[in-house]
């Protein structure tokens, strides 16, 4: 795509000030109000790029378009509020110990971008590298772990299979006795994994993109996409029509609705995923613990709450209501792993929508409709991929070519039969 030829508006509000320790002290002492982190705008009638969905993926794509390629005449539109989709509802686990070489390479790049993200965005994203441990309760799971560890090591990823004694040292609260229904036979330990403050990541990208001239439009629902002669010409929204030649679908759980507007069929179905959080307690758990067999995972936040998650609800739906069946099942399984937690109280539970694909890998790139790109299929695992997906999608738009790092994740893989099977590493682990 060519560089923007639109003239910049003559009046621009003052740019945001950088956050710093001195800034924090001054604000604290004077009690003056903080400046807003991003601006509201009227909707223009034309943009070079329209990104649908102001979740992590849409905002990261917008940021890298502006920061890496100087493309700033960009609108990010969202039907609700920024981060109101999966990006504000996930359990924020980051890791790169996937099963396929394509997957491992891709997620590793994201982890590297996350390492420097706080400095790059001038925003504290609270990346906590506490390590990630997946438990095996049967021979099949242990075999897949050995396979994963080898694939990981070949790609230079720190990942190894450890035995129950080492597991007990790492997480003393785990029940590693051998007379339980699901004894722990081993685990895949991945020290670089961890958790992050998901809202901070979303807000950090939004603030930095805004700073570079990108417009974020909340409460702006896309209701139609105009396609003429196989080419995108515009987007219809509840706040008016926009002319544009480039549209990126970053709407995760709602992405089939948007793709359908452009006449693109996708192998994606939507299912809710639930999570829950307990009251805060003293820090005792310093590793993310996942059990595929028991469909549960747990981590402790910096504030001391335990965050629990499971696998997706067992049927497709766009409803984000939580269920008692989930809370009951979750509690039972958590107690099998850590009986000492029986006195803990759940504070709340919630659900978000997940865009599931047949091979548990995302779909990124062109679609066959000229100018209509997708960055979807993020299922239960897409938060960790936000930075790399944003970087690669921005690259795709700017250069008109699909960069190598996402070349294996195209929509065409379902007609060529070249699937990227990650179910063994992504079904519960996130």
């Amino acid at each position, binding site marked *: 795509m060519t560089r923007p030829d639109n003239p910049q508006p003559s009046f621009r509000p003052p740019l945001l000030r950088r956050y710093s320790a001195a800034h924090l002290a001054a604000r604290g002492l004077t009690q003056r109000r903080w400046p807003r982190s991003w601006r509201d705008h009227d909707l223009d009638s034309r943009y070079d790029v329209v990104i649908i969905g102001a979740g992590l993926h849409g905002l990261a794509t917008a940021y890298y378009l502006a920061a890496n390629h100087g493309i700033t005449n960009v609108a990010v539109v969202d039907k609700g509020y920024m981060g109101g989709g999966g990006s504000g509802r996930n359990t924020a686990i980051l890791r790169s110990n996937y099963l396929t070489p394509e997957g491992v390479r891709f997620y590793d790049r994201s982890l590297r971008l996350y390492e420097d993200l706080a400095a790059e965005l001038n925003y504290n994203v609270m990346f906590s590298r506490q390590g990630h441990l997946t438990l095996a309760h049967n021979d099949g799971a242990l075999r897949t772990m050995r396979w994963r560890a080898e694939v990981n090591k070949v790609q230079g990823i720190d990942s190894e299979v450890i035995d129950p004694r080492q597991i007990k040292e790492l997480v003393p609260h785990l029940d590693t006795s051998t007379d339980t229904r699901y004894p722990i036979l081993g685990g895949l330990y991945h020290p670089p994994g961890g958790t992050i403050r998901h809202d901070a990541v979303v807000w950090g990208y939004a603030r930095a993109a805004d700073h570079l001239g990108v417009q974020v439009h909340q409460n702006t629902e896309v209701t139609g996409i105009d396609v003429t002669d196989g080419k995108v010409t515009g987007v219809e929204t509840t706040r008016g029509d926009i002319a544009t030649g480039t549209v990126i679908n970053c709407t995760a759980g*709602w992405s*089939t*609705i948007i793709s359908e507007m452009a006449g693109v*069929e*996708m*192998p*994606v*179905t*939507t299912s809710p995923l639930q999570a829950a959080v307990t009251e805060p307690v003293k820090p005792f758990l310093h590793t993310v613990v996942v059990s595929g067999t028991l469909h549960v995972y747990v981590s402790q936040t910096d504030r001391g709450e335990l965050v629990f998650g499971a696998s997706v609800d*067992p*049927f*497709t*739906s*766009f*409803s984000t*209501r939580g*269920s*008692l*069946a989930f809370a009951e099942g979750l509690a039972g399984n958590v107690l099998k792993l850590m009986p000492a937690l029986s006195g803990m109280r759940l504070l709340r539970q919630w659900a978000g929508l997940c865009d599931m694909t*047949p091979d548990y890998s995302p779909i990124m790139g062109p679609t066959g409709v000229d100018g209509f790109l997708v960055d979807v299929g993020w299922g239960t695992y897409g938060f960790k991929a936000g930075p790399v997906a944003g970087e690669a999608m921005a690259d795709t738009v700017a250069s008109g070519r699909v960069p190598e790092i996402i070349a294996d994740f195209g929509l065409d893989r*379902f*007609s060529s*039969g070249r699937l990227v099977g990650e179910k063994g590493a992504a079904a519960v682990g996130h």
Partner: protein
Amino acid sequence: MMQLSCPWCGPRNVNEFHHDGPLHHRPDPTATTVEEWRHYLYIRENPHGVVEERWYHAAGCRKFLVVTRDTRTNTVIPAEGESR
């Protein structure tokens, strides 16, 4: 808990059932094209609204049943003549 009405067993909790998805047609493997077969394998309808779909009463009579459901709210729409 959300309930489905099985024609044999009556209203039952949803976790007794297995979700099979929207009704779709399986092409004849001996007479289909590769493109058509892959479409059958991978492309699923993902309706945002009312859908006719198949469920399996796994923890009950073990029969398949067709349910009409609104995927936005999970409201089950009773079939004609069915009392709920």
